[in-house]
């Protein structure tokens, strides 16, 4: 085999690497290896001058292989591949040695770190000799997009893609879009009414020709890859014919289960019937029959008062679930959050004392179309004289969620203002740190302070009932005193948590989740909207708790990502795939069952296995299982791996 001309570049990454690894020594040692014609170390390889240096060496010195010892390939391998291609060398004739995340950042002893870095570079050099040029595979992009989750960030993403002239399938688990925001009354910091700013967007979604809205639906299967996903969706029956239903609500008032079923939308503060309209501004403004509580659907015996009451004859009990299959180019996840169940912290008395409610329940109370039509009332109907708001219930807590849920401080200040506004009660806010991070937030906090709200710097430790009155027990840490403050109502601002089905959704889409259970982004700082799976993007609280402005911004960002690949019309996909040498394949069929994408088929005439390289994703499981060694995975074949192992252990 003719000798290769290998260029090795050791990056200092400022002091990130060179602070621990002696880059000069590694460069010097590696230079001694045969076929290494260029060995240089430089402060920032990923910078323009760094990349220029590589390009020049390729051109002038005729390098045919390049090794870059720097950060993780997951970070800059695409950058350096483009650099090689810029100099006319195939991007896959490159191997990166991860001497930052896997060496300098995790090793104290400099001498050991240098030794470890050198062995990784040796492995890379031995491996790169066996690299073969691989052409990037480009695939056409279907110009449709699937948005999972109809909350504010899902709506924003859907509208933006639709307005750009492309088809969107918006899949929403509940019977209506608007998500948690639809439940709010006012929003901070401007006290805009949530309905006023959200409803127009919901209506746009309902009327947009490019958006196909599927409510009561969930994704059950995702196949394919970026640009060519096939998404299977199960739509649960609503038992209402959408075309006929006018949303008049007669069925709801006729239903014999009227005011007997806790209404989820009102967080249990009101009761509804089995056939009902979710809420007045719901989109779609259509009735739905709750098959968990409708007497006819559960026990087959009911007077069917609703059918009689429905002028439009829209009720149809033999609707059944339908399965849809959508071909889409990309998927945007905007599934939102669930609230921490305060029952898990019994010391706050949620579910035991009447007037202890959580944030969403308070939102419903203050909402004009809510159960109390906007009046803040106690269980006995009277107005509270004093209200407490407790921050960080289930957040910033080792026993529940370690993270800060980011929005509760501002929503608590908003609650305090609303209480002052509606019923001029004394308001006590128990906080640890007042986090007013957004535009106009500090000013809003300042204004509410001046409205005479008592801000007690100390986490509410317990809510007791003494002589029939609720008492919030906490330490006023600025006074250094234990205090028991009697109030009529307590609002617990509970943590924002991942959806209860987040694990199932992550597995269905093949993405991973970070330690706190939210979906994991490619890079927490530089790439918060994409995931490591090309073509699947994140928006809103499903990635981590955030306020409405950030959710909307991420909705737009995710839409931009989808529109980008639609605009280019084609997208590069990982060219790594397996191939079978039919000369060596004995047709033993062991590999066929190993491929979950069914990319391997037996050719009936030749009785040899064959791989459809378009479908193959390059995992290599079949290659490891083939007893004849007939299957080779490009860029990860046996010789390359064995050579690298030999190198790193030298």
């Amino acid at each position, binding site marked *: 085999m003719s000798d290769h001309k290998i260029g090795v570049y050791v990056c200092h990454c400022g002091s990130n690497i060179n602070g621990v690894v002696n880059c000069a020594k590694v460069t010097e040692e590696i230079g001694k290896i045969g076929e290494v014609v260029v060995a240089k170390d430089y402060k920032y390889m990923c910078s323009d001058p760094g990349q220029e240096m590589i390009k020049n060496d390729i051109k002038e010195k005729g390098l045919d292989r390049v090794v870059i010892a720097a950060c993780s390939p997951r970070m800059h391998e695409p950058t350096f591949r483009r650099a090689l291609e810029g100099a006319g060398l195939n991007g896959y004739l490159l191997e990166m040695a991860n001497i930052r995340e896997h060496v300098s950042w995790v090793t104290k002893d400099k001498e050991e770190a240098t030794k470890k870095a050198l062995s990784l570079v040796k492995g890379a050099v031995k491996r790169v000799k066996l690299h073969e040029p691989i052409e990037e595979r480009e695939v056409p992009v279907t110009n449709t997009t699937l948005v999972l989750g109809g909350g504010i960030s899902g709506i924003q993403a859907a509208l933006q893609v639709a307005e750009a002239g492309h088809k969107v399938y918006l899949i929403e688990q509940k019977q209506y879009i608007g998500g948690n925001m639809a439940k709010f009354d006012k929003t901070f910091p401007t006290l805009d009414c949530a309905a006023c700013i959200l409803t127009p967007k919901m209506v746009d979604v309902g009327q947009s020709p490019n958006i196909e809205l599927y409510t009561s639906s969930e994704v059950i299967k995702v196949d394919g890859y970026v640009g060519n996903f096939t998404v299977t969706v199960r739509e649960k029956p609503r038992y209402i014919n959408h075309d006929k239903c006018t949303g008049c609500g007669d069925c709801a008032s006729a239903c014999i289960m009227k005011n007997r079923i806790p209404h989820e939308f009102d967080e249990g503060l009101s009761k509804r019937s089995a056939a009902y309209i979710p809420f007045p501004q719901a989109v779609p403004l259509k009735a739905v029959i709750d098959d968990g509580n409708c007497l006819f659907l559960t026990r087959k015996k009911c007077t069917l008062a609703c059918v009689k009451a429905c002028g439009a004859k829209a009720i149809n009990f033999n609707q059944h679930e339908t399965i849809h299959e959508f071909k889409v180019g990309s998927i945007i996840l905007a599934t939102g959050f669930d609230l921490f169940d305060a029952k898990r912290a019994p010391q706050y008395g949620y579910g035991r004392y009447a007037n202890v409610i959580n944030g969403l329940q308070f939102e419903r109370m203050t909402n004009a179309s809510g159960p109390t039509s906007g009046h803040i009332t106690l269980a006995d109907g009277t107005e509270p004289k004093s209200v407490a708001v407790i921050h960080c219930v289930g957040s910033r807590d080792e*026993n529940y969620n370690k993270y800060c849920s980011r929005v509760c401080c501002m929503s608590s200040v908003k609650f305090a203002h609303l209480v002052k506004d509606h019923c001029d009660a004394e308001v006590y806010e128990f906080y640890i740190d007042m986090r007013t991070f957004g535009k106009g937030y500090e000013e809003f906090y300042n204004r509410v302070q001046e409205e005479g709200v008592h801000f007690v710097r*100390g986490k509410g430790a317990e809510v007791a009932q003494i002589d029939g009155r609720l008492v919030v027990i*906490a330490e006023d840490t600025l006074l250094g005193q234990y205090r028991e403050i009697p109030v009529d109502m307590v609002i617990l601002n509970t943590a924002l948590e991942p959806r209860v089905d987040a694990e199932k959704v992550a597995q269905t889409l093949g993405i991973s989740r970070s330690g706190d259970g939210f979906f994991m982004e490619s890079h927490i700082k530089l790439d918060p909207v994409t995931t490591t799976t090309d073509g699947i993007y994140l928006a809103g609280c499903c990635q981590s708790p955030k306020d409405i402005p950030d959710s909307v911004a991420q909705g737009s960002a995710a839409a931009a990502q989808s529109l980008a690949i639609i605009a280019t019309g084609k997208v590069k996909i990982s060219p790594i795939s397996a191939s079978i040498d039919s000369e060596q394949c004995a047709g033993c069929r062991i590999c066929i069952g190993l491929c979950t994408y069914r990319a391997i088929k037996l050719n009936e005439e030749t009785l040899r296995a064959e791989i459809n390289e378009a479908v193959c994703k390059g995992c290599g499981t079949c290659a490891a299982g083939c007893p004849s060694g007939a299957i080779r995975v490009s860029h990860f074949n046996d010789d390359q791996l064995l050579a690298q192992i030999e190198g790193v252990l030298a």
Partner: protein
Amino acid sequence: MFKDFTSEIMSYPGGEKITACMQCGTCTGSCPTSHAMQYTPRRLISLIRANQRDTVLQSLDIWKCASCYSCTTRCPRGIKFTDIMYILKNLAWKEQSKMENKNIAGFYNAFQGLIEKRGRMNEAELIMKYSFQTNPVKLLEFAPLGMKMLLKGRAAFSAPSVRNQVQLQKIMKLAQERGGE
């Protein structure tokens, strides 16, 4: 021999997470006797971290802990504050020559004396020893309750003890010396 009071506390089992405290006051809010404390649990932690060793060890508040572990359970940072209170009492007991509150000192001395010698406890005997150590008039205060307990057969006058007193006294002495270094 320690850099500061914080690292001293952290060197003892149970004290390791004290630097994680965010001064949120949940411990004070959960403590059933903090209403009577000049230095609340949260404040004790900030005093420790401010290296004010004498203020902490001489304060009476550390002896008001009923050891109900409510602060340990609810602490959002996972600090075992009940164990820290024990550490503070150990240090105070070892170093403070005089203890203002006779009641506390007398009771602990009486209890420890019985345990180290006989390994078992009899409440009546404890109360008597405690009263003699503090002030005999206390016996009169306890007398009515003592009588009721006697009538109900809930007072025994035997001097309960483990059989192997030698072994018990040896291990307690070894623990004392070892703990004392």
